[in-house]
């Protein structure tokens, strides 16, 4: 999924301004009576634009709302993707809204296994299964709220159970993708670090074993036999899984099934879901094999300074052997500017702006060993081969160095002070 972004970023600059208009809600075309609305809300930060494009290209919310169309909620509710300012997905009871944060999608892609990295899970099942899994978890919270479901146990576990149980109702491939995606998220991502026992959630490992246990206790146990064969589920727990599954099934039948349209359910169950297109899959594989070669660079000014001008020295995509000094880019006050796509693992930058009437300069001090002195044109736009021998009309300034994280495809410099 990640590589889809590549294509998306190329058209980014053109669509950028159009994205700021208010989101409008959409509905799955196949079921006009559905009470599920969805919307991809444009992110405020440039860095999440690729994620925004990716989830739209995958038609994540379209698929999910059709997937959930048999559920007859008492009123409309919505699912959105949104920039939250933190890594999470949540259900907002006051808005009857499920929110998937772009930050969560990005983090999930970051923790997913890479090619060549030994893992029992594929990138695809973690990214696709994990995303759908977390949305089904939030749907669990939504169902508890909107259907007034009595919950005696911890609601967070209830939401996990709903996520796993619903996943198990679909065709074997979908069931396996979501359960395995959830398993990876719980075990590898959430299971990392010291457990916080005071939290209303179970620990990552508890959630991992819970979901495995329900899957193992279900009619679909054969799909998850590999976990059991590897001894992932200790025998003492495995022995009670049939009963645990029956508890979930019985609770589902009593509290949620009455709100499910059986006919619609049969139609939905028969469909293929969550399949990446051959093109998406090819891009995904290509991306997995090739290390990142390029990155997209953007600058945001959210500080009190105004009229910022930005210059940088980079390796161009078409000619990576040569360093080029580029300028000037006007950064909008309280806004962002996409500079371009470049190669390499570092760049150098220099900027000027006004603080009130005073000129402010961001240059490296002479003592900075990592900096680089370059000639620029002080007032006109320029694209110059990197050089510290200035010609007439040029001045020498000291560029600051910026390391580019090799795992990131999108880099944003954010001025906040």
């Amino acid at each position, binding site marked *: 999924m990640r590589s889809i972004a590549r294509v998306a970023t190329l058209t980014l600059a053109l669509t950028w301004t159009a994205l700021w208009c208010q989101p409008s809600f959409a509905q799955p075309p196949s079921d006009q009576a559905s009470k599920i609305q969805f919307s991809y809300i444009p992110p405020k930060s440039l860095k999440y634009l690729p994620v925004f494009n990716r989830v739209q290209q995958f038609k994540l919310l379209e698929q999910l709302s059709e997937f959930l169309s048999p559920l007859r909620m008492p009123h409309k509710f919505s699912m959105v993707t949104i920039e939250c300012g933190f890594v999470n997905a949540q259900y907002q009871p006051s808005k009857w809204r499920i929110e998937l944060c772009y930050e969560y999608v990005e983090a999930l892609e970051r923790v997913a296994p890479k090619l060549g990295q030994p893992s029992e899970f594929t990138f695809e099942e973690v990214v696709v299964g994990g995303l759908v899994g977390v949305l089904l978890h939030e749907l669990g919270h939504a169902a508890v709220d909107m259907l007034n479901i*009595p919950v005696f*146990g911890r*609601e967070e576990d209830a939401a996990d159970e709903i996520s796993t149980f619903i996943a198990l109702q679909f065709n074997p491939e979908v069931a396996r993708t979501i359960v395995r995606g959830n398993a990876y998220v719980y075990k590898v991502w959430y299971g990392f670090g010291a457990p916080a026992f005071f*939290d*209303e959630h179970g620990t990552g490992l508890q959630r991992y074993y819970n979901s495995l246990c329900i899957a193992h206790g279900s009619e679909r146990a054969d799909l998850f036999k590999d976990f059991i064969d590897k001894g992932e589920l200790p025998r003492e727990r495995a022995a009670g899984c049939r009963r645990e599954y029956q508890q979930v099934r019985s609770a589902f039948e009593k509290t949620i099934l009455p709100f499910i349209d059986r006919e619609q359910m049969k139609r939905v169950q028969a469909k293929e879901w969550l399949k990446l297109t051959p093109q998406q899959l090819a891009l995904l594989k290509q991306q997995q094999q090739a290390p990142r070669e390029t990155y997209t660079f953007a600058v945001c000014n959210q500080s009190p300074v105004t009229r910022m001008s930005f210059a940088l020295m980079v390796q161009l995509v078409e000619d990576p052997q040569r360093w080029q000094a580029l300028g000037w880019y006007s950064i909008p006050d309280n806004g962002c500017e996409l500079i371009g796509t470049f190669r390499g693992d570092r760049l150098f930058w220099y900027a000027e702006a006004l603080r009130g009437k005073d000129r402010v300069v961001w240059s490296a001090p002479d003592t900075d060993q990592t900096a680089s002195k370059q000639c620029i044109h002080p007032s006109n736009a320029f694209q110059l081969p990197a050089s510290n021998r200035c010609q007439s009309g040029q001045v020498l300034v000291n560029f600051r160095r910026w390391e580019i994280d090799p795992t990131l495809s999108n880099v944003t410099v954010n001025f906040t002070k």
Partner: protein
Amino acid sequence: MAVSIKSTVVLASIYLAAHASAAIAQPPPAGQSAPPAAQGSQIEIAYVPPSNRNFQPIYDRVKNRKVLEDLQQFLAPLRLPRKLTVKIEQCGAPSRPYQPQGPVTICYELIDQIEKVAAKGDPKLRQPMIAGAFIQVVVYEVAHAMFDILQIPVWGRAGDAADRLAALVMLQFGEDLALRTIRGTAAFFLASKKTWTGSAFADANSPEEQRYYNYLCIAFGGSPISFDFLVSGNEPLLPLPRARRCYWEYQQVRMAFNLRIMPFVDPDLLVKIRSADWLLPADGR
């Protein structure tokens, strides 16, 4: 040790007996001549003599103090569709988890264990810990039986559900009883906590520390004034990110109780039990 364990039983039975005598003291409703528990109660009780002689003193005390008879009275408002046996028995393990259609079993081993954990702790906390933990164990085990007998849909893990229901019940009988039992329960979980790592988390039951916070959260959510000490100070016992959600956690269990259990409760009898004098002795002697 002998003194302490005696206190457990005394405390528990005093609390139970207090309600029993109060309930009996009420004039019976018209047409009702026997005490509530004796009429239509579906609770049967048994003290099974232990084969291990070490447990004999516990057996003698619980039997003499009529702990289970008091529990029978306490559960009298419940209108169960079938009989439920509650027994105290030697299990060969600290607990014998409830099985569908089965009896509720309180193990001598667990009473003994509670006593031993309490003996190692702060002497001031010893008596409330024993009493609180004992009452918690009984209510927790009965909660499992309720889920089965009343065919209640249980979302979330059964053990956590039983804990939350037990905490809710422990809060319904006045501030003093709530404070003592919740404090005692919490102290016991803290004192008996183990280190959990790796596949230990595969256990179907929650770690002691999680149970500790779950009880505190329901208590604070249901009774924020009585339990305000949980959120005071720089390092509150109940961390604020959790505490903020506790009102809703309490309401959620309460709503589930009202929807799924209240239809099986005789409301008039419940009022009598709740209005009884539930004060415990000051030090649990």
